[in-house]
C-alpha cells in the first residue's frame, strides 16, 4: 500500500470546490477586509502622510501607518527566521519598494482597496543600492548559510595549483536572475479573536512557525494563538513564514474586535513575499585528459537585503557531487535595498546546479568526452568533503538508465549539426542532487472502536499529497484500508511538525505516523496479552502484527475493532516522533542525498532563436516512494520549473526605482501548457535504510535540481551558443545562431 499510486484522497473536495482555502473561510461570520498600501520608492523615508481622505472614505473602519499601528516586538535573531517576530508599519524608513506603509480596513474588499489609493504618502527618496553586479565589489562572506545548515565555505587541497597544473580547465561565470515562487493561491489570512484567544487561518507551509511568529510579534503566549491551514494552494518556499498580511490581519482583528481578512494581490506577491536572490557564480574545474577532475571550485555571490540574514546555499550543492582532490566553495552576499530574499523551491540547487552542470558540459566539450561518461568517471566513492560514506546513492544508475531510455546515443557530439525543417535540434543532460533533511515532527494516530483510524498533525498539505500518503502509511502500518484512515492536518491543536518545505515533509510526517502506529501496536498487544478474554492472552507481545484488521501473535489473532471496543472503549492513541537529523547518529555517519539525471531535447528555431523543449526525461533515486503518482507529479513539476529557470523566469530590477518592473504573470513567465513536451519521470525503486524507518527521503525539489542545466546544455548542443546569463532568451542566441 505504501508507494501505491493512490489517487489523492482530497481530490474530490478540490474539484468540487469544497476544499476551503484561507481566503474562503467564513467560520467566524462576515469579516472586514484589509488592503495593504505599499511604498512607492525603493529606499528612503516617508516625509509626509495624510490619511484623512482614506479615513473618510465609505466603509473605512481603520487606517494604520507607522504613526498609529500597534507596537510590536522586534525579531530575535537567535531563532529560525520563519518563526521570528515580523513587525509591520514600525517606522518611516522604507527598506524596499512595495514595503507596507499603511493598512486600510473597510467593510468590503472594494472599499478597502479604493480607500487604500487615497492614503497620501510623500517620500524623501534616498540613493539606494539596487544593482547586484554594480555592488559586487562590496560582497562579504556571511557568517551562516541557510541558518547554519551549511558552512559558508569549504576548502580541501589547493585549487589554484591544480588549475595551473591541469591540461584542461574551465573557469566560467554564470548569472541567475531574481525569481519568484508565485503559487496559485496568494498569501492570505483570516483572523478572529475571542477574548484573548485568536484563531488565525493563514496560508502557510509551517503551522508552528506561523504560530510562533504571530505570538512573538504581538508579545503574547503561543497558547493564545490557534493557527489553521487545512488546504494550501502551493507555497514553494514563499509560505514558510507568514508575512505582513497575517500580522496585520491579526492586529486589526484585535483592534476592531471583528474578524479581518487580508489577501495579497498578484502584484503585491512580487514585493511582499520574498524572492529567490539573484546570483553571480564562478565555477572552476580542472581535469586530466581522461576527464578525472583534479579541482572543483564554486563561488556564489548572491543578493541579500540590508538587515536580513537569509543566505541561499547556492555553493553547497556541489560539495557531495563529484570527486576531486582539490576543492573550494564559498558564499558571498551583497546587501541591497530590495525585499529580503527567501527560499524558493530547491534553494541552492536550483541555481547552483545550473552553473555547475553547465560547467561540466563545457568541460565535456573541451575534453571531447561524452557528458554522461564524464560524470560517471567522477563518481566519488565517499562524500568528497565530509569523507563519510553515502547512504544509498544511485547517481550512476540514474545516468545510465536515463541515457538508455532517452536514446542519448543519438546525440551529435558536435554542436549545430542536427536540423529539421523548423530548427536546430540539441540534446543535453545534467545530474541532479539534493540534500536530504530530517526535522523534528510528531504525529498522533488514534484508533476508534470501529477499527478506523484518525491521524492528526499540524503538518500541512500544500497540494503535494500529504493527506494521501499519511492515509496510506497508517493504513499499511495498522493493517487497514487507507479508506478507513481519516487524516486531519494543518491545525496547531494537533501535534507539532516541521511542516512542508525542504522536501522533508513527506518523510518526516510519514515516519512519525509509522512510529505512532508501531506504538499503538505495542499498546494493543500489551493489552491483549494481559486480557484473559483475548485469544492472545499470555503470549509474547513482541511478535505482534497488524494485518487485515486483526492483531495477531503467532496463530492467535483477534479483530482490532473488538480489542479496542473491549479494552479501550473511548479509543486508543499514540504519538510518533522523528527527531531532528542533527540528533540522529546515521545523519552524522552518512551523507544523505537524493539523486537523478535529466535528459532534454530542444529545438531552436533557426530563424528566430525561440527555444522549444521537445522532450524531457528524468530518472530519480529518492529512497522509498510513498505514493508513486504524487511523487511523479512532484518530479514532473520540478522538471518544468527547471525549464522555466533555464528559459523564462526573470524578474529584472529597475535600478532607478529599486523595483521589480513587471509584476504580473503576463510578464513574469513560467512554462505554459504548450511549453510542456513529451516528458517523463522514472523512479528507481529503492529504500534508504540510513534515512529513517521507512527508508523514504523526499522528491519535492529533486526534479528541479539540474533540470535547467540539461536544457541549457541541449541549447548549446543545438546551436553551439553557450549562454551563461540565465534565462536563455532570444536576444542572447540571435547573434550566434548558425546560418
Amino acid at each position, binding site marked *: 500500500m505504501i508507494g501505491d499510486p493512490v489517487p489523492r484522497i482530497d481530490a474530490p473536495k478540490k474539484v468540487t470546490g469544497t476544499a476551503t482555502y484561507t481566503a474562503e473561510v467564513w467560520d467566524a461570520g462576515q469579516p472586514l477586509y484589509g488592503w495593504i498600501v505599499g511604498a*512607492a*520608492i525603493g529606499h528612503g523615508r516617508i516625509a509626509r502622510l495624510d490619511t484623512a481622505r482614506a479615513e473618510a472614505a*465609505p466603509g473605512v473602519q481603520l487606517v494604520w501607518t507607522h504613526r498609529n499601528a500597534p507596537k510590536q516586538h522586534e525579531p530575535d535573531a537567535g531563532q529560525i527566521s520563519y518563526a521570528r517576530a515580523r513587525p509591520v508599519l514600525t517606522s518611516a524608513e522604507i527598506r524596499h*519598494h512595495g514595503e507596507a506603509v499603511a493598512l486600510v480596513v473597510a467593510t468590503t474588499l*472594494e472599499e478597502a*482597496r*479604493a480607500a487604500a*489609493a487615497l492614503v497620501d504618502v510623500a517620500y524623501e527618496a534616498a540613493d539606494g543600492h539596487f544593482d547586484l553586479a554594480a555592488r559586487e565589489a562590496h560582497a562579504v562572506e556571511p557568517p551562516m548559510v541557510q541558518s547554519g545548515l551549511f558552512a559558508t565555505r569549504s576548502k580541501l587541497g589547493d585549487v589554484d595549483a591544480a588549475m595551473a597544473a591541469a591540461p584542461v580547465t574551465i573557469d566560467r561565470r554564470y548569472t541567475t536572475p531574481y525569481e519568484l515562487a508565485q503559487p496559485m493561491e496568494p498569501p492570505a489570512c483570516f483572523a478572529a479573536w475571542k477574548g484573548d484567544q485568536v484563531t488565525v487561518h493563514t496560508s502557510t507551509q509551517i503551522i508552528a512557525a506561523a504560530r510562533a511568529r504571530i505570538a512573538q510579534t504581538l508579545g503574547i503566549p503561543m497558547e493564545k494563538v490557534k493557527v489553521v491551514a487545512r488546504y494550501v494552494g502551493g507555497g514553494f518556499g514563499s509560505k514558510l513564514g507568514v508575512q505582513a498580511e497575517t500580522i496585520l490581519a491579526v492586529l486589526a482583528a484585535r483592534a476592531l474586535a471583528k474578524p479581518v481578512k487580508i489577501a495579497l*494581490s498578484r*502584484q503585491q506577491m512580487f514585493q511582499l513575499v520574498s524572492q529567490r536572490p539573484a546570483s553571480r557564480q564562478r565555477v572552476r574545474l580542472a581535469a586530466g585528459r581522461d576527464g578525472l577532475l583534479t579541482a572543483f571550485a564554486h563561488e556564489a555571490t548572491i543578493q541579500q537585503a540590508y538587515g536580513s540574514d537569509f543566505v541561499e546555499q547556492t555553493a553547497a550543492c556541489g560539495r557531495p557531487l563529484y570527486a576531486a582532490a582539490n576543492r573550494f566553495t564559498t558564499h558571498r552576499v551583497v546587501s541591497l535595498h530590495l525585499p529580503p530574499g527567501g527560499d524558493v523551491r530547491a534553494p541552492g540547487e536550483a541555481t547552483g546546479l545550473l552553473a555547475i552542470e553547465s560547467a561540466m558540459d563545457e568541460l565535456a566539450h573541451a575534453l571531447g568526452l561524452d557528458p554522461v561518461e564524464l560524470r560517471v568517471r567522477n563518481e566519488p566513492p565517499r562524500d568528497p568533503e565530509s569523507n563519510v560514506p553515502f547512504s544509498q546513492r544511485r547517481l550512476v544508475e540514474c545516468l545510465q538508465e536515463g541515457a538508455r531510455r532517452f536514446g542519448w546515443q543519438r546525440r551529435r557530439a558536435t554542436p549545430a549539426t542536427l536540423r529539421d525543417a523548423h530548427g536546430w535540434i540539441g540534446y543535453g543532460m545534467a545530474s541532479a542532487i539534493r540534500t536530504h533533511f530530517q526535522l523534528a515532527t510528531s504525529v498522533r494516530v488514534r484508533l476508534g472502536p470501529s477499527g478506523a483510524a484518525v491521524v492528526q498533525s499540524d503538518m500541512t498539505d500544500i497540494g503535494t499529497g500529504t493527506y494521501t500518503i499519511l492515509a496510506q502509511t497508517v493504513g499499511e502500518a495498522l493493517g487497514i484500508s487507507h479508506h478507513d484512515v481519516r487524516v486531519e492536518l494543518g491545525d496547531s491543536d494537533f501535534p507539532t511538525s516541521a511542516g512542508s518545505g525542504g522536501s522533508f515533509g513527506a518523510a518526516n510526517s510519514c515516519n512519525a505516523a509509522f512510529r505512532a502506529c508501531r506504538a499503538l501496536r505495542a499498546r494493543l498487544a500489551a493489552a491483549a496479552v494481559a486480557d484473559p478474554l483475548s485469544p492472545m492472552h499470555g503470549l509474547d507481545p513482541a511478535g505482534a502484527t497488524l494485518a487485515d484488521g486483526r492483531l495477531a501473535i503467532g496463530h492467535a489473532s483477534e479483530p482490532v475493532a473488538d480489542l479496542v471496543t473491549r479494552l479501550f472503549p473511548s479509543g486508543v492513541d499514540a504519538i510518533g516522533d522523528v527527531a531532528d537529523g542533527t540528533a540522529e547518529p546515521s545523519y552524522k555517519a552518512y551523507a544523505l542525498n537524493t539523486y537523478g539525471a535529466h535528459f532534454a531535447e530542444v529545438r531552436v528555431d533557426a*530563424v*528566430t*532563436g*525561440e527555444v*522549444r523543449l521537445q522532450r524531457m526525461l528524468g530518472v530519480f533515486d529518492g529512497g522509498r516512494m510513498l505514493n508513486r503518482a504524487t511523487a511523479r507529479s512532484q518530479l514532473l513539476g520540478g522538471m518544468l520549473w527547471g525549464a522555466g529557470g533555464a*528559459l*523564462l523566469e526573470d524578474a*529584472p530590477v*529597475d535600478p*532607478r*526605482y529599486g*523595483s521589480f*518592473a*513587471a*509584476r*504580473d504573470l*503576463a*510578464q513574469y*513567465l513560467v*512554462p*505554459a*501548457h*504548450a*511549453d510542456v513536451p513529451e516528458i517523463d519521470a522514472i523512479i528507481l525503486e529503492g529504500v534508504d535504510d540510513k534515512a529513517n524507518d521507512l527508508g523514504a527521503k523526499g522528491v519535492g525539489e529533486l526534479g528541479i535540481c539540474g533540470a535547467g542545466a540539461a536544457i541549457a546544455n541541449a541549447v548549446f548542443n543545438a546551436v553551439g551558443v553557450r549562454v551563461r546569463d540565465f534565462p536563455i*532568451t*532570444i*536576444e542572447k542566441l*540571435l547573434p550566434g545562431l548558425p546560418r
Partner: protein
Amino acid sequence: MKAFTYERAADARAAVAAAAARANAKFIAGGTNLLDLMRLEIEQPAHLIDISRLPLQAIDDEPGGGLRLGAQARNSDTAADPRVRTRYPLLSQALLAGASAQLRNKASIGGNLLQRTRCAYFYDTTAPCNKRTPGGGCAAIGGLNRNHAILGASDACIATNPSDMAVALMALDAEVELLGATGASRRVALRDFYLLPETTPHIETVVHPGELITAVVLPRAPAGRQLYRKVRDRASYEFALVSVGVLLAVEKGTVEEVRVALGGVAHKPWRALEAEAVLRGRAPSVAAYQAAADAALARAVGRGHNDFKIELAKRTLVDALTKAGRP
C-alpha cells in the same frame, strides 16, 4: 478600484446615448482588459455601460465578398468561423495566437481593438508614465524596455500595441464602423484608426469619447497566401515580441499582391507599405524579401533591451514571406 455605477444597454443607440449622458463613462465588453486596469486604478470610469449582450455578435457576408464582424463577436467564434478561416486565414491565425482559450471566449472584436499597452511601467502606478499621467515622463525610456517599440516611437512614449488581431486586420485593409452619440455612424480605415504616440501618447485612436465600435468590415481579400507568425519566449499565452502578418500572391514569377504588417514593434499595428512597394511587381526571392524587410525596418530605432527586435523582425518577415511565396 474606484466605485462606479453600472447599466446594461438595451441596444447600440441606447448605449451611445447613455455614454453621452454621463461624464467619464466607459463601455465594457468582455472586460478582460478593462477590469484589470480598473482594479489598478489605471482606468477610473465613474460609470460602466455593459455592451456585452448587444446584438452585435453576428458575422455577416458583405456584398462584394467582404465580411462584417460585429463588435461583440467573440474572438474565439471569429477565429473559428469557416468564412474567416477560408477567406481570412491570417485573421484566424492571429486571433488564435492571442491570449488563451478562456480569454478568447470572453474577448470581443471591439475590446480587442482598444486593448491597451502591456508596458510594465504603464501597469506600475508608482512609475512615471505619460500615457497614464500626461506630462509625467516615460519610465520605459532608459528603463527596462525589452517589449517596447522600435518604429514610430516618440520621446514621450515607446509603448507597443499588444493586439495580434489588429495586425491581421491592418494587413487586410479593414475598416472600423463607429456609432456616435448623435446616432450618426462613420467608417474609419484601420490604417487611420490608431495614432502614433508623438506628444500625446494617452490618445491612442481616433475614437471620440462615447463613440461605440459597432463592427469591423473586411473587404474582399485579394488572392494570395496569408500567414501570421508570432515570435515569443514561450509557446503560448504571451504577447508578441514581434509578429508579422503577410499576404503574398505570386503570378507568373512576379509578386502581384503583397501585404505586410508587423506587431509588437510600434504604438500601433504597423503596416509596412515600404516593404510592399519593394516587392510589388518583382520576382520573389530571398534577396527581394530581405530588401523588403530592410525597407520595413529602415527607420527602426532600438532603445537598449529591445535592440534585438530589429534583427528579429527582419528575420521573421523574410521567413514569413519565404513561406508564403513558396509555390
